[in-house]
């Protein structure tokens, strides 16, 4: 964790890399909502933090004043790392997004489900006899990395490489953008080899799909193919790793919920939605490109906005008992996958992976508890990075 000057006041000097925020941001967001719903900090060259659902929603819907060309808050100015469509605004956004949607429909994910289930069980096989495991390292992180590699047609064994790039871009790159740029360059180089290979010998994978797909009758520009691959790899891994990890953390610390899910497995899809709400992993960002006002607060052009779907999901004005995890919550319009035109393309994949991961774990290991110190990731994606359990 980086050494940061202590936060003087959460409303005017917040720091989302502060250890208090990283370990338990929920009381901080609660305080913001009651005292100063749109907080600001001069750190990171100026960032706003809307903590209420309504304000997060307003920013997400307003693509005129809030651009996606920068979706990560960093301490240093761009170079930007394009990864369309997540870094695109209208009108370029729509065509870039349309090409990515068909491979991620629920039906497409159904076909992947047997692979996910087999993978979950292979992982459990490796630690079940031991009576303990790091559920973040040995289980949660392995499922998405291998599945997205499988979808892209990349070697599942390169997982360590992908995780290293992701850490460089999403964590280390926040305070030193050169690290992020270096990782992006390495990724481009890595992908080029596979792109050339699939151009000659197309297969049944997403790289081949992106090379063959037409947008308005035209093939994708090579830099858009690479950009989309970069996005899929980055967005498809530590987000769902975090989501699965948070589910397991909750079930390890709330035995009543865990036992109820073992007894009533049909409740699982509803419970997963509640875990997505309560522990939404992803915080996006926007760049203010035109000055505007929301809820009486002026957003100055050139500054950034942390778009915290996790904070929106804990707003009691939108969700009764917002800080309570209610695994059979009926009404749940949570924003874990974003709101508006940038809704997560991989949401169906993430849901399938989380459901399968929790379901298979509970089938094989219905009783487990925490066995040591849990650490949480910092920055754009929140989830357990060490999650020792015993059973």
């Amino acid at each position, binding site marked *: 964790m980086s050494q940061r000057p202590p936060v003087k006041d959460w409303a005017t000097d917040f720091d989302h890399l502060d250890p208090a925020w990283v370990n338990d941001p929920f009381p901080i967001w609660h305080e913001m909502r009651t005292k100063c719903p749109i907080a600001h900090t001069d750190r990171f060259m100026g960032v706003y933090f809307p903590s209420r659902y309504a304000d997060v929603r307003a920013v997400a819907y307003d693509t005129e004043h809030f651009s996606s060309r920068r979706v990560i808050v960093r301490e240093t100015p761009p170079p930007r790392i394009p990864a369309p469509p997540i870094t695109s605004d209208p009108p370029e956004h729509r065509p870039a997004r*349309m090409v990515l949607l068909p491979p991620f*429909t629920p039906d497409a994910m159904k076909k992947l489900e047997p692979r996910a289930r087999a993978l979950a069980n292979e992982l459990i096989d490796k630690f079940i006899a031991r009576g303990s495991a790091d559920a973040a390292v040995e289980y949660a992180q392995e499922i998405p990395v291998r599945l997205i590699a499988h979808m892209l047609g990349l070697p599942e064994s390169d997982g360590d490489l992908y995780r290293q790039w992701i850490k460089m871009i999403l964590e280390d790159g926040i305070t030193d953008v050169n690290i992020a740029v270096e990782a992006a360059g390495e990724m481009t180089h890595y992908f080029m080899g596979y792109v050339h290979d699939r151009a000659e010998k197309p297969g049944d994978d997403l790289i081949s799909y992106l090379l063959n797909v037409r947008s308005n009758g035209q093939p994708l520009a090579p830099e858009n193919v690479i950009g989309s691959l970069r996005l899929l790899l980055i967005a498809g891994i530590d987000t769902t790793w975090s989501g699965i990890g948070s589910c397991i953390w909750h079930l390890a610390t709330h035995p009543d919920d865990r036992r109820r899910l073992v007894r009533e497995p049909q409740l699982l*899809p509803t419970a997963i*939605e509640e875990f997505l709400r309560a522990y939404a992993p992803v915080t996006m960002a926007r760049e203010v490109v035109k000055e505007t006002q929301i809820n009486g607060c002026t957003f100055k052009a050139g500054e950034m906005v942390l778009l915290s779907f996790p904070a929106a999901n804990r707003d009691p004005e939108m969700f009764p008992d917002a800080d309570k995890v209610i695994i059979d919550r009926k*009404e*749940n319009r*949570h924003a874990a996958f974003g709101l508006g035109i940038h*809704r997560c393309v991989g949401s*169906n994949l993430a849901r399938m992976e989380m459901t399968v991961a929790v379901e298979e774990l509970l089938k094989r290991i219905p009783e487990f508890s925490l066995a040591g110190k849990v650490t949480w990731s910092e920055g754009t994606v929140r989830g357990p990075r060490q999650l020792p359990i015993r059973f």
Partner: protein
Amino acid sequence: MANSSTLKVRVDRDKCQGHNRCKALAPELFELDEYGNAREKGDGVVPAGLEEKAYLAKSNCPEFAVEVIETKG
């Protein structure tokens, strides 16, 4: 007639962003296009017994794109 009101569901296609919550919760009432965006099945009329699912789909749509319309006969 004792009860002549009909219930219809409708997806506002301009608001739908393809979260797929309606389809997951009420597959009898909603279907998806090749991009994963939702629309009501047929004329959207909710058959008897599926009223609760219609309201469940509505109250779980993050984009407020699902409407349940009640018409008195």
